């Protein structure tokens, strides 16, 4: 008899609990620094304002976002929302937030960045760009000072920086003058400065005009201007950075991006002076970095579209966005927050200065770079760039063959994506 009573009570409790359980939102999140921790914290305020809603922040490695999330979404077993970097590539799964948000506020706050999440005829409101990044160069100022060589100015070209870095490395006995992360995204800005178009007349992805940069970059790897270890010691499209070499004082000029500021700040400390010098100019006239970053999106397969939209809209509000940007030390994509300026929490003067320099560099971003970041096929193009450029660096392909192969690979990838 007691058992029947217990069973009845449990069933009743489960029945009562069902509505609350039905409002659980799974948020798949990866961190470059402390982002997920900060989201988890600020979302407790959303939960307090919306009783019965439980936003569970599932912290996963970045690799899971890149490799597992697309498969989960294709299989219909994805989370309700996630922080993603393949902004246009996952568009087919995005939840359109438009019916649940003030689109005027979003347009005014995020403007053209919203296009990075739009593909073809899916032109809704899909993603909150939570982390705006831009590629640029870190320079070891102490090495320049020790070498007694003046740092090139703000309009200096890649050739100017190459000559200066080589001279500094030679004078100070530093192993590597320059390095650039092994990533198709990282070389996009310099390539555009050398004339890469990245789009054909119809707006499709293309490697038209990539040759001059490829030739220069391969040459720099051959003559030792660039650290050969970064691009030549890996295979496939594997990502490899050179941050550790820079932190160890073995590198004069390191081209990476704004997301490395926190790492430099905490790991370089007082060992040497470093500064951000933005993106050098190229023969095509541009001095462009490559924008990027991550955004928070909801997925159509969620059972609770209104709640997911409400959570994302909550994070998009100016006060919350400004707080998150300050606590995570990320450049804001929100126009009002950016114009008000962000006092990054716990950042040293050098880090604050570096982030300000990166933010100022956003004005120089080429329209091609802006469009390339939002192009749905950019991830395929990044991978192709890394593979073929590496083959040219190690001598498996000539520069011309490598660029020709890049075009063929892209055509095959686009055909498969259709």
């Amino acid at each position, binding site marked *: 008899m007691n058992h029947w009573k217990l069973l009845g009570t449990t069933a009743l409790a489960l029945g009562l609990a069902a509505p609350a359980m039905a409002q659980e939102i799974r948020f798949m999140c990866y961190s470059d620094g402390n982002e997920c921790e900060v989201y988890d914290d600020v979302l407790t305020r959303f939960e307090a304002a919306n009783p019965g809603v439980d936003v569970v922040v599932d912290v996963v490695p970045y690799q899971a976002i890149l490799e597992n999330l697309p498969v989960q979404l294709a299989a219909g077993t994805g989370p309700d929302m996630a922080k993603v970097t393949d902004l246009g590539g996952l568009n087919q799964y995005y939840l359109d937030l438009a019916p649940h948000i003030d689109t005027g506020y979003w347009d005014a706050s995020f403007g053209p960045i919203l296009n990075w999440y739009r593909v073809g005829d899916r032109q809704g409101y899909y993603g909150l760009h939570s982390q705006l990044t831009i590629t640029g160069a870190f320079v070891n100022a102490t090495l320049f000072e020790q070498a007694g060589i003046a740092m090139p100015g703000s309009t200096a070209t890649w050739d100017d920086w190459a000559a200066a870095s080589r001279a500094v490395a030679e004078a100070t006995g530093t192993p590597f003058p320059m390095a650039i992360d092994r990533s198709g995204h990282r070389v996009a800005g310099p390539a555009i400065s050398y004339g890469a178009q990245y789009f054909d007349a119809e707006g499709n992805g293309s490697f038209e005009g990539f040759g001059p940069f490829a030739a220069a970059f391969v040459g720099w790897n051959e003559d030792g201007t660039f650290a050969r270890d970064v691009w030549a*010691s890996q*295979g496939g499209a594997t990502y490899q950075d050179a941050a550790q070499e820079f932190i160890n004082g073995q590198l004069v000029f390191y081209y990476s991006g704004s997301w490395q500021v926190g790492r430099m700040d905490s790991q370089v400390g007082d060992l040497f002076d470093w500064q951000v010098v933005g993106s050098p100019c190229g023969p095509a006239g541009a001095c462009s970095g490559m924008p990027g970053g991550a955004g928070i999106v909801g997925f159509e397969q969620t059972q609770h579209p209104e709640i997911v939209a409400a959570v994302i809209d909550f994070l998009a509000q100016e006060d919350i966005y400004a707080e998150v940007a300050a606590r995570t030390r990320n450049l804001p994509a929100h126009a009002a927050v950016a114009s008000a300026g962000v006092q990054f929490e716990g950042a040293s003067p050098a880090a604050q200065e570096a982030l300000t320099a990166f933010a100022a560099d956003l004005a120089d971003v080429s329209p091609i770079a802006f469009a390339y970041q939002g192009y749905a096929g950019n991830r395929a193009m990044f991978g192709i760039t890394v593979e073929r450029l590496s083959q040219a660096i190690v001598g498996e392909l000539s520069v011309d063959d490598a660029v020709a192969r890049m075009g063929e690979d892209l055509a095959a*990838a686009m055909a498969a994506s259709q």
Partner: protein
Amino acid sequence: MAETTGQGAAAPAPTPATPARTDGLFLCLISPVMRVIEIPMLALQRMLGIHRLAWVFLLPNLLLFGLFAFLPVILNVAYATTGGANVLLADRPYVGAENFGFLTDCANYLDPNSCREDKFWRAVWNTLWFVTLQVGIMVGFSLLTAIVLNREIRARGFFRAVFFFPVLLSPVVVALIWKWILQREGVLNAFLDWTGVGGYNWMVDADWAFGWSVFLSVWAHMGFYTLILLAGLQAIPRDVYEAATMDRASPWRVFRRITLPLLSPTMLVVLVLALIKGVQTFDEVYAFTGGGPGTATTFIIQYIYEEGFAGAPRLFGLAAAASLMVAGVLVVLTLVQLWVSRRSANG
């Protein structure tokens, strides 16, 4: 005598009391269940006949085997004959042999640059070179080590353990150990700098990276094959060697005329197993070099992994087609192994 008889008569039967009690208890519990099962089983037997009833007992195993062995092969064929980047088969268009055609479209198979999918042919040639070198060196060294460890040497047990130890390591651990030793600021370069020879950037040089990959693989797997060959050596009858000693045969002649012929069945098994394992090489070299520099150490399994899972878009069809081609090679090698095993079992 009487005492002895008495003792013999008094000796208890060698049936332990406790197991008998346990068996009894077990039978008590199981009997009602068996009686319940017996009714439908008898009905089934009457319906199917005693011979077909065997299939009923085999059914659970067949289902599991089908689910985990046959179904993936069928799915693989399905993916290999469809195109696009979608995961769900229903969303993938049928393309027939297009993926196979794409992979095999070559002007000259010996020159990957003349192939439409040059990365595939680079991986194929790398794998062939790797297997040839790795298997040759590994079987040779394993034989040498087994012969030495089969002799009455001091600390033989210790050395057997030393040679077998790398087999116990995870492939990723093996790769990380050697990466730590061979990287630009690694242990080897530190030693070479100390001796005045000067270090070298091994991992950036395509030939050296390939050579070290072969070495690492031999180091990691040699112990396993040494163990098999050692067992083969110990199975050779001693009296054959004693007869050779009495005939004053030289050690080289003993090795050539006795050891090698009697060890050849084991050698063949080792060779085929090493070939299969060599074609499947992926994890340790991938963790060691990432397939670089360029594609110098990209082997066929890494190509399949990258096309199917790491690249964008994910070309499942191409990866599945390549994996079926590898499967074909492995099936041939497995059949050779089976043939060799049966031949050696039959003497």
